[in-house]
């Protein structure tokens, strides 16, 4: 009999049978891990299975290869007031669906778990959108796709980094990028090494540039071989963010 207890964040819950559901959690020590929850569609359990809810989970199975069952206890609900904030709600769904679709199952990602918790806490601040972008960059890094945004890929001036190579994910300085700048991605101001982050963090246009940049790498690196491509929730979040900006 295999058994462990951990903390987790609900990523998705898909109804299975009449009353149960297969619930995917991002756990602190066991990574993305699915399990069957008995009576998941009951009035008492439904609320704690919303994406983004925090739970204490007790997983048990006959052997390590089985799906196993979860006994869950609520630890914390959704971030305060998020149901009334369409953009933040879209961001939360995007983060949960990215974890659900991109992370390999049963591989520990403790840093990403704490990063997601931190992101949910940041929804109460004005800089949540920047936190979201930083979280996506850390997701890329966890999956083995590191962006190098602190030095020039072509040995140019590190103080004038303005672009990112769509192939290598490395920053390029203004002078070195000049001949190819139409083909390069723009490096958002708040990710440039010489930038005062406090001044630019609230700039939504800059955040949209950053979402397009991370979106490019998610599409071409992480989801290039996934049949369904980038999760719908991520695309909707970027679309909603773009719609929010004045024309």
């Amino acid at each position, binding site marked *: 009999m295999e058994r462990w207890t951990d903390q987790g964040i609900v990523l*998705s819950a898909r109804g299975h049978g009449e009353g149960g559901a297969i619930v995917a959690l991002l756990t602190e020590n066991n990574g993305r891990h699915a399990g069957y929850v008995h009576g998941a569609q009951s009035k008492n359990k439904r609320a704690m299975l*919303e*994406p983004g809810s925090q739970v204490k989970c007790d997983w048990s199975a006959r052997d390590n290869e089985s799906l196993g069952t979860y006994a869950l206890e609520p630890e914390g*609900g959704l971030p305060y007031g998020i*149901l009334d904030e369409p953009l933040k*709600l879209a961001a939360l769904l995007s983060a949960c669906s990215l974890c659900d679709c991109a992370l390999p199952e049963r591989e520990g990602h403790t840093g990403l778990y704490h990063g997601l918790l931190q992101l949910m806490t940041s929804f109460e601040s004005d800089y949540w959108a920047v936190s979201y972008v930083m979280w996506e960059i850390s997701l890329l890094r966890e999956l083995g796709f590191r962006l190098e945004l602190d030095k020039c890929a072509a040995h140019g001036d590190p103080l004038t980094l303005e672009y990112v190579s769509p192939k290598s994910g490395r920053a390029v300085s203004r002078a070195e990028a000049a001949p190819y700048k139409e083909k390069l991605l723009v490096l958002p101001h708040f990710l440039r090494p010489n930038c005062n982050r406090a001044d630019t963090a609230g700039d939504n246009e800059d955040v949209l540039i950053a979402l397009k940049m991370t979106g490019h790498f998610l599409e071409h690196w992480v989801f290039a071989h996934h049949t369904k491509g980038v999760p*719908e*929730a991520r695309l909707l979040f970027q679309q909603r963010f773009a719609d929010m900006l004045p024309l």
Partner: protein
Amino acid sequence: MLHDGPLDLLVRQLSSLPGLGSRSAKRIALHLLTNKEKLMQPLAKNLEYVAGIINPCQSCGNLDEGDICRICRDPKRDRATLCVVASVADLWAIERTNSFRGVYHILGGTLSALDGIGPDDLNIRSLVDNIRNGEITEMILALSATVDGQSTAHYINDQLKGLNITVTRLAHGVPVGGELDYLDDNTISTALKARKQA
């Protein structure tokens, strides 16, 4: 024991209904067979009759006799107030309260990015057309206080931007008969946020 015949088929059909397993299905089949004239035959007739006569309302999506349901036909209903619900069961729940005298629109579910349910899978386009062409002045979004329910509410709200219509939603908070000690943190904080003068 059952054989692979009509009785077995009946049990299998009954066990495919919500809330019924194979044991319950067998008990029901046995009960029906022992009360053929009193129960089984009238039930069979009624099932056939209801299947033929009940259809989704062409206006709101409710299930009723004819093309237009009783609620949409009722002249006493306030046609300026529209309540948007996810399913027929939600409409029945609101009707049970006798506290709403407007008309309804049934979406047929909620948006779910995780399950791949998009706007084209729901009756959202007809809702927007109804509001553009109709006499509606207030729309109440009576959707669940879940991530999917509220995502759907925000999406519908976005679609109606620019139209001269008041959009409201159901309040979230302490249920009648609920004790604070048993409520989750989010419900209590939402109820505190939406407090009103005593």
